[in-house]
């Protein structure tokens, strides 16, 4: 029992650490990738150097990292923590403090059901590389994402600021509109896989990945999920050039938590897209005993290697999607409120309904 607990804690720490790590690195990726896209040099000023000449080998190792500006993520964190925690007059102290915590906690909690690897046979145990093998994992993910919106709304309402209020209102309606599409889009995948368990969904994609069987659902889900991350082109709750955002009255690490939430959600969405539509930890032609290529060649691999390959594949896919999301974020302009609603309710929602119905019919016909 205690070992079980330790294993679960280890898994939880692993996924939590990875999620936070990815989110932290995304701040750097965001800087550097936008710089590359915009013909700039980008962040390269945060550096760690040691004065002592005995530590010069360390400096030598740190050199390229300094040049890449990778320590900006660290500098950001230090800055956020060192800043004054400002509380506007007339704000609700309790809710104002609670809001960022709600945001980030629920975003992180959703990672609990994301499977990042197959079942691992180790030391006579079966370790499911998923923190919690809920059989209604999808519902859990949606529940967590919906609850995360409360943070944004509360931030908007508790700040005693018109801009923040507008941001909160926008967030509420945006999340409501797009969650429905997201849920319906995933229904297609669920119907194909016949399970609500994320591990099961991944397993069902061993032959054909989800984006091939459910291309429309893939596009719909990705669009709606991007809207959930509240980033350009769906950054209406933030809209820094219009209403500055729901977090206008936040400073220091409370602001940092909102900032982090956006990035954590980006990672989460990347994980979910990977899980639902890109085969999760599946590697093409890799079966539990090794590679079996269609032209007949086969490479046998030990079990642990297969698991490691799977985990690596999962994270590589997540990284690719993060890149894609960053590229979208730095290319497109922002929607307007009514256009966002039009897109959500008049295009995406009917399309996802049609997708669900067509998929159901096909699934029933196939028997």
């Amino acid at each position: 029992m205690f070992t079980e607990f330790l294993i679960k804690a280890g898994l939880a720490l692993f996924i939590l650490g990875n999620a936070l790590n990815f989110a932290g690195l995304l701040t750097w990726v965001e800087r550097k990738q936008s710089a590359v896209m915009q013909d700039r040099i980008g962040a390269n000023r945060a550096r760690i150097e040691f004065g002592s000449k005995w530590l010069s080998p360390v400096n030598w190792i740190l050199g390229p990292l300094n040049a890449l500006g990778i320590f900006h993520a660290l500098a950001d964190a230090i800055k956020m923590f060192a800043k004054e925690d400002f509380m506007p007059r007339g704000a609700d102290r309790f809710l104002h403090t609670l809001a960022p915590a709600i945001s980030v906690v629920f975003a992180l909690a959703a990672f609990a059901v994301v499977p990042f690897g197959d079942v691992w046979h180790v030391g006579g145990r079966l370790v499911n590389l998923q923190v919690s093998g809920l059989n209604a994992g999808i519902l859990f993910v949606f529940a967590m994402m919906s609850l995360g919106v409360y943070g944004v709304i509360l931030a908007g309402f508790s700040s005693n600021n018109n801009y923040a209020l507008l941001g909160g209102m926008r967030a509420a309606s945006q999340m409501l509109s797009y969650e429905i599409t997201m849920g319906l889009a995933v229904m297609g995948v669920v119907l194909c896989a016949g399970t609500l368990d994320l591990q099961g969904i991944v397993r069902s994609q061993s032959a054909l990945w989800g984006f091939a069987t459910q291309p429309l659902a893939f596009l719909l889900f990705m669009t709606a999920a991007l809207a959930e991350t509240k980033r350009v082109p769906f950054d209406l709750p933030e809209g820094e050039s219009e209403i500055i955002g729901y977090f206008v009255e936040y400073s220091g690490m409370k602001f940092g938590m909102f900032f982090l939430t956006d990035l954590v959600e980006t990672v989460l969405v990347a994980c979910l897209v990977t899980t639902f539509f890109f085969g999760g930890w599946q590697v093409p032609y890799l079966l539990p005993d090794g590679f079996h290529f269609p032209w007949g060649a086969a490479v046998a691999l030990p079990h642990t290697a297969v698991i490691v390959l799977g985990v690596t594949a999962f994270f590589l896919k997540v990284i690719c999607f993060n890149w894609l999301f960053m590229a979208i974020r730095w290319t497109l302009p922002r929607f307007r409120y009514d256009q966002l609603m039009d897109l959500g309710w008049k295009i995406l929602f009917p399309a996802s309904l049609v997708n669900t119905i067509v998929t159901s019919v096909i699934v029933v016909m196939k028997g």
Partner: protein
Amino acid sequence: MGKPINSEARATETRSMLLNVGPQHPAMHGIVRIIAELEGETVLGADVEIGYLHRAFEKMCEQGPYNNAIPYTDRLNYVSPLINNIGYCLAVERLMGLRTTERCQYIRVIMSEISRITDHLTCIGATAMELGAFTVFLYMIKAREFLYEIIESVTGARLTISYARVGGLKADLPEGFEERLRDAISRTRKVLKEVDGLLGANRIFIDRLKDVGIISREDALAYGITGPFLRSTGADYDVRKAQPYLVYDRIDFDVPVGEHGDNLDRYAVRMEEMAQSMRIIEQALKEMPAGPVLVDREEKVIPAAEMVDEAKIGHTQGFKAVGVEADPTLEGTGRPFHATVYAREKNVSLPAKEDAYGNIEGLMNHFKLVMHGHGMRPPRGEAYFPVEGANGELGFYVVSDGTERPYRVRVRPPCFPIMAALPKILTGDMVADIVPTFGSVNMIGGELDR
């Protein structure tokens, strides 16, 4: 005391929300305040408050000799300062009846058009940034940088250029200017093509701008709006065509006009205007003659070596004072009379530094122009000179009382009428449209508030 409050009615009462956009707002260019009345996300009404950047430009111009106002004009529209410089000098030159040299006129045209491009680049880039397309903004700024480098090589500064002088220019073009400018233009064209690819067919961008910030042609004319903002409504008023100045009448270019007077048309007009400006620059580069860039007292240039003190050889009778009555109306300003006005002296150009330091005539010349109580003295009179600024008709109205200082300088800033019309334009749009519409006005605080 008072009426009893019906609590039920109070509970259902709805009020519009007042949103204070600016003066400290991340998307306000310069400092201005828009008080918007909102019903949900719809703007019911707006009130624009200006004047945060008022620095008494017009009064400051009266404090010193004519040439001293030139650095102040840099700070009017600080995105296209060359046009302000040139506009002010043209107004004073009209007052004195001066005609600058051919080469100077061509250079002024080229520099004005470069400024127009930098201004439009900034404006479109900022509009895109306000819509969240930050990448486009940096592409535009990159293109602006190509042109700023050219401006820097010519004037020595990027922003506070102070390049024009009454009677000419501070200096001639540097060596290799033409090749560098052609290169910069071709690179700018590439950037514009890229940006057009990013925005021109971008559904989100078009939807955000189309049918937003509409003003009718009648309203625009009634408010006195000029420039790209007016042309987006379909009126083809362009000072360069309507009252050609410098050598614009010899150059072939089109005035792009829009149709609907919305933000998208303003974007399109500005994009096309940049292409036309490049066309103008290329023609001007081809036709530009060689020669001096400053005029002398007889509107001709004397080499410094031949310059002598006129009084030494007894040339005093030429200095006759001709009284020009200041016309209280503006009717007199366009009269051909001004072209032949015999200013007491038309010596407005400072001698080259090597002459000022190297020979007595140059030193005297310099002294006579810069010392207190001396300097250029336009005859009594008034002149209004409109130029096509990047935002519209930029007019300088200069009144002279015959002394070495202007009696009055008045600027007609092109974005002032647009700001007056802004509440009307904003009403009915959504709160998210305030900033893009405001961006399409291209308000420049320095010019608006003076």
